[in-house]
Every structure is written in C-alpha cells, then in structure tokens.
C-alpha cells in the first residue's frame, strides 16, 4: 500500500437531491486513526455524510479530498450498510466476493475465507445460503466481507441497529479488534452506549450540518452546544 488515504478533508461539501439540500455545507478534517462516531437525530444527515465520504453520493458544491487520488482512496475503504446486502450466494461466497473482484489467488481466497469465517463464528454456516442467516449473523458477515480485503478505512452505517445485545457486543468486539489492528473506523450510530464505548472522536449532526465535533470524552462529559446537551439528555432536538 502506498501512503495513507488520510487526512480526508471536506470543504463546503453540499449534497442535494431533487433540488433539496440533504447535507452541507460540510467542512471537516479527519485524520488516520481511531474511531469516529457520527450521532444525531433521524434525518440529520448521518447516512448521507457516510455515503459522501465513500463516494456513493457526489457533492453538488464544494469538495471532498483525500491524501491520494479519489479512485485509490475509494478502493482502500469499505462500507457496511445498515441493512446488510446479501448476495444470492452462500455465506462463504458472499464473504470472499471482494477478493474475487480483486483477482486474488485461489489459495489466498481459501485461506482468508476460512480465517474470517472462524473469526466471526460462521464457520459452520459457510455452505449455507446467506439469506438463511439471522439478522445478527448477516451483519457479522457483511462486516467480515467489508474487512476481508484489509481496507484502511471501514465505514459503518448503524451496524447494530435492530440487533439484540449479544449480537451488538459481538459486532463491537470485531470493530475494536480491527481498530486495534490499525483499521480506521467511521460509523453512524443511534446507540449512545455504543458511541461512548467505541468512539474516540464524535461528530454531532443536526439538519444536515456538523453541529459539533471533537474528542468523544469531551463531548460526552459536556457538549459545547445546547442542542448537543439536549441530545445527550434524550430530549427531542430539531
């Protein structure tokens, strides 16, 4: 791998759809370590910001820049969707699909496939159709699929939404291990407990704008804005 994709900077980035502003203008700089959690009420622009960073949305105004060219930056990150997208294949074939796209050797595919199936506790389900997995297993599989090609950045959109506490704990374990191993993580979550457990850095979104950002510890001890404090207190924020 040549150089890091970080720092990432967004300068006046605006996303519009049907003439309506969904996000921005966003001015942001993200460096290459730790876990950034994006929080905020529904419709505040968390998902759109993640999709913008991953290249699934394009800026109508402003720009998003990486330390390397855009194509190279996008190829070194992976995205986990809130609702896991399962291909019409077996669990193993879903898992190794990114390696096949990159033309990995059979031996590499077999070795990494085995290792990741074991790591996410799906070894016994390898030959099962992915559609037969439970919601928690599907999300674990989609995280493993995102990580199998060793991305520098992993972006997750509410990875444990609608999951029970056991599945949530399992997913947090995987994310913590990966972050320790050097994978930069940016994730949106509605779960404040999860944001406190995993986050090093917080971005609080409101009405399509970054309302407040900074170290997680500082934010959770005492948010700087009224809306941030109200959100943490569980009040309805608009």
């Amino acid at each position, binding site marked *: 791998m040549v150089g890091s994709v970080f720092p990432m900077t967004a300068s006046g980035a605006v996303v519009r759809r049907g003439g309506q502003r969904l996000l921005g203008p966003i001015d942001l700089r993200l460096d290459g370590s730790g876990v950034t959690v994006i929080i905020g009420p529904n419709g505040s622009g968390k998902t759109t910001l993640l999709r913008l960073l*991953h290249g*699934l949305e394009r800026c109508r105004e402003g720009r998003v820049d990486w330390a390397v060219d855009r194509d190279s930056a*996008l*190829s070194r990150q992976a*995205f986990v*969707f809130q609702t896991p*997208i399962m*291909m*019409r294949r077996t669990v193993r074939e879903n898992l190794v699909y990114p390696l096949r796209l990159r033309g990995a050797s059979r031996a590499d595919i077999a070795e990494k496939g085995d290792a990741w199936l074991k790591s996410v506790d799906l070894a016994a389900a390898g030959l099962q*159709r992915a559609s037969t997995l439970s919601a928690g297993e599907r999300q674990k599989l989609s995280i493993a699929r995102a990580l199998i090609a060793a991305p520098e950045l992993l972006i997750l959109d509410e990875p444990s939404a609608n999951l029970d506490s056991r599945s949530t704990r399992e997913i947090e374990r995987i994310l913590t291990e990966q972050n320790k191993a050097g994978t930069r993580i940016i994730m949106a979550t509605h779960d404040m407990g999860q944001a406190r457990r995993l986050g090093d850095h917080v971005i609080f979104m409101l009405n399509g704008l970054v309302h407040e950002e900074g170290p997680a510890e500082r934010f959770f001890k005492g948010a700087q804005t009224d809306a941030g404090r109200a959100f943490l207190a569980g009040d309805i924020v608009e």
Partner: protein
Amino acid sequence: MNDIVEGLLHALRLIVTLDGDLVEITLRSLRVTLTATAIASLIALPLGALLAVRRFRFRRATIAILNALMGLPPVVVGLIVYILFSRSGPFGVLGLLFTPTAMIIAQVIIIVPLITSIAHQALRDIWAEYHDLLISLGASGRQRVATLIWDGRRSLITAGLAGFGRGIGEVGAIMVVGGNIDHVTRVLTTAIALETGRGDFALALGLGFVLIGLAVSVNLIIHSLSGTEVGSRW
C-alpha cells in the same frame, strides 16, 4: 375429436417405431433451435445485464423498442433474411439461403429481443438489490455484468427457455428462408404445415404432439439440470 385421437395414436406410433423421417426432422429442429438459442443467449444475456446496470441517453427508448420487438412478426424477419441472403442480396455470395444456417440466423433475430427483455427485467431487480454493494466494492462494469448474470442465472434460464419455446414453435421465418426442403431444411413445424396443406391431419397432429412433447422435455431436462424450483433454493 376423432382427428385428435387419431393424431395422438399416430404420434405414439411414430415415436414407438422410431420413424426415420421423424427422428431426422426432430433432430434438425433441435439442432436449429438449440443453436439459435445458444447464440441468441450469448448476445442477449450480456445485453440485458448492460441495460440493467448502465445509464445512457436512449436507454428507455432502447428498452421500449426491445419490448416491442418481442412481437416481431416471424414472416417479416424471414423475408428480410431472405432478401439479405438471396443471390442478389448483400450476403448472397455466402450461399446460405435454404440451409439450416439461414434458419438459425432468422431464429436468432426473432429470439434475441425476447431473451434480452426477460433477462433485463430479471437482472434489473437484482441490480436494485446489489447496486450500492457493487459500487461500494468498486466492481468494474464488466464485473457488475458478470456478477448479475451469475447470481441471476436461474432467472436467465427461464429467459433462455422462453427463447427456445419461441424458436421451436416458429414456422413463418424458417419456411421462407429454409424452404422446407426434404432431408435438408425440413423441421417439425414446417412438416406440420406441409401435412396440413396436404390434408393429412392425423400426421400433422401427430407431429404437433411430438413437437409439444419435445418442448416440454427440453424444459424439464434444463430445469432438472439447473436445480431450479427445488425446495429452499432460489
């Protein structure tokens, strides 16, 4: 009613005695239509997938035209192929008129829009599911098409079978470009037309039942080999 019963008995007799002419024209029917279906699938399946994944200026118009071409009149196709391959036509030098090759070409033209249209509709649904994932994983255009074709293969078998069904029962175009020449271009449908014209309804019906049996058998064999409609599978 008597004609139908007699036709059924005639069909049975032809099959049980392995009538030489029947075997010959049945094999020719199969060869022409299976070849045409294979060639048409090679063209139509990637085309259907491309229409599903690519956005281009005249995409809607292309899809509308393809859908309209599903009802392409075979006789008109036969006539156009006839003109193209007749001695004075641009491809006359190839000497293909009144050969099984000309019949295959005509059938390919008839089948391609049908397979493309069905494939496009099936793959469009899979593309809607996969869109974000494949973009996110950085799949190239060719990889997207290959993925859709592989993951949609069971729906695509149905598209291919629809093409086969249209081809095997087609008479207008192959009559024009093949000429229904005995031992050369005669196939089941043209033989049925000939026997009907001669007034031998029992033989015509017998051949008709063989044709229906053939179409059903090919469908069953392909479904069985591809494992579709098996419990717990897509």
